């Protein structure tokens, strides 16, 4: 993977936010860009590429990439369901939502459907406790989840995927 011209320009913009010589500060935002450009995960090659862009050592990239939970260290499905399981969401039935998604997609937590369409993960509090139960899907939150709403979301993903093919 290499960045498009647009992304390279974005990288320069990000670096300019920090004082001279502090371009390492750009690492976390640039890893977000890299993950987007690489189907939602960070391969060793991608991390090495980012190290080159910021003139830092590859190890400095690996240690950061593995620390933060939003970076995926392996290939994931086209749609990532990240369901919150912390206290406040649990009080509003997140256990049932997780069980339902597992059953409906026939996968366990951390697994991807065989068609490569969906990955299910559990995550810790995402700051949406008042709109629980909830999950994150890409850039957006899906809140006030019910079984019916889960059905709907899965349906929408499938038809979107069909449209784009």
């Amino acid at each position, binding site marked *: 993977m290499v960045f498009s011209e647009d992304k390279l320009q974005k990288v320069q913009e990000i670096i300019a*936010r*920090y*004082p001279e010589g*502090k371009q*390492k*500060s*750009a*690492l*976390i*935002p640039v*890893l*977000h860009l890299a993950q987007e450009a690489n189907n939602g995960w960070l391969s060793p090659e991608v991390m090495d590429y980012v190290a080159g862009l*910021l003139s*830092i050592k590859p190890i*400095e990239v690996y*240690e*950061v990439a593995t*620390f*933060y*939970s*939003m*970076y995926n260290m392996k290939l994931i499905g086209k749609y990532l369901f990240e369901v919150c*399981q*912390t*206290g*406040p969401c*649990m*009080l*509003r039935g997140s256990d049932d939502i997780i069980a339902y998604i597992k059953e409906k997609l026939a996968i366990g937590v951390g697994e991807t459907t065989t068609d490569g369409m969906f990955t299910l993960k559990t*995550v*810790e*509090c*995402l*700051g*949406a*406790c*008042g*709109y*629980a139960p909830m999950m*994150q899907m890409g*850039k*957006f939150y899906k809140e006030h989840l019910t079984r019916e709403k889960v059905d709907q979301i899965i349906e929408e993903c499938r038809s979107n995927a069909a449209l784009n093919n």
Partner: protein
Amino acid sequence: MGRKVLLDKAHIEGIRYYDVYRKNGGYAAVEKALKMAPGDVVEEVKKSGLRGRGGAGFPTGMKWSFLAKPEGVPRYLVCNADESEPGTFKDRYLMEFLPHLLIEGLIVASWALGSNRTYIYIRGEYAWIVDILEQAIAEANQAGFLGKNILGTGFDCQIYVQRGAGAYICGEETALIESLEGKRGNPRIKPPFPAIKGLYDCPTVVNNVETLAAVVPIMNLGGEEYAKIGVGKSTGTKLISACGNINKPGVYEIDMTQSVEEFIFSDEYCGGIANGKRLKACIPGGSSVPILPANLLLKTAKGEQRMMTYESLADGGFPTGSMMGSGGFIVLDEDQCVVRHTLSLARFYRHESCGQCSPCREGTGWMEKILTKLEYGKGQMSDIDLLWDIQRKIEGNTICPLGDAAAWPVAAAIRHFRDEFEWHVTHPEEAQVRNFGLAHYADPLEVAVG
């Protein structure tokens, strides 16, 4: 009705955009502050009695006056928008609906502290809010409230939004600084404090989103007027994010004149317990503060009405009180299992420990394991004492307060709900099919419900 100074304009259509915000009195605080000497702005904030809204409640004016000012060294202001404490979602609300209120507060604070590069560190999951903030910043630049030579004062300031990538620990201010420097979020040993050596080893102030937004009404009203809102040392207003088993979860601004009972049961706030159930317990200030059973929540141990102030929520200390914390108000109804809920929080802290200190790294793992045993009917009576022992060994023995934050919820759950833990041991099979429900400690509630 309580007085509002933060969310009073939240209902105005289009208030998210500069033009509407400006027409409704926006940026008057910047105009006022930039005519004052920076030191005088700090004095106003001191007079306001404002206490940090991120959880610790440290007086903001005092924190600002500690900032070192060596010649020729840049100083930084960093806004903490990491908001990851379970139960807390108030900063998100502020940024989503009133982004300019935060930007305005940041400009005033940057002027007061002399920060030319100011960063908002926001949790990575709030991706759509990054867009909202960046648009607000672009609008403020266009209007001349940011950029070079703001309002002809010669003051240059730019605000940048930095996204995190999923780590609760990055809400701790020194971990946040490490993360902003492009590293793992490992908290630093203090001292030196950020006020002396923070971002890029320069003097730095880290403040919560709500704290910085509150600077706007402080400038507009004047510190003394602001201090008249609230009760005693709990000055001003506080945002409370209420969640759990209530009828109206959401974000509420209170002026701290409310009692806890009014906050839970009145229609203006939580609207009572959902589905006609009874109140069992509540964590009033985010997952890290002690849980209280209903009776101790509504009345202090002295039998006084418990109020939504810093002092009253903490009345009785840890034995019989709790804390205002971040304002994450989590309500449990009679059907909830305290053991299960505590387990879920223990798992959270184990997941979020950065792993630097062994009491925290190992202790959080052990607490999760033992709670899992108890919850699933595999525990023994001695496990409850072991759990108590482990949490005591974490508290106070770590680099950062995450260790304490992990220990306190477990300690409070055992302190107030020991009979429920014991029931899990004596009734291992029954505990798999039903919850313990209410016990004697909820008696006074009959009154509150009826």
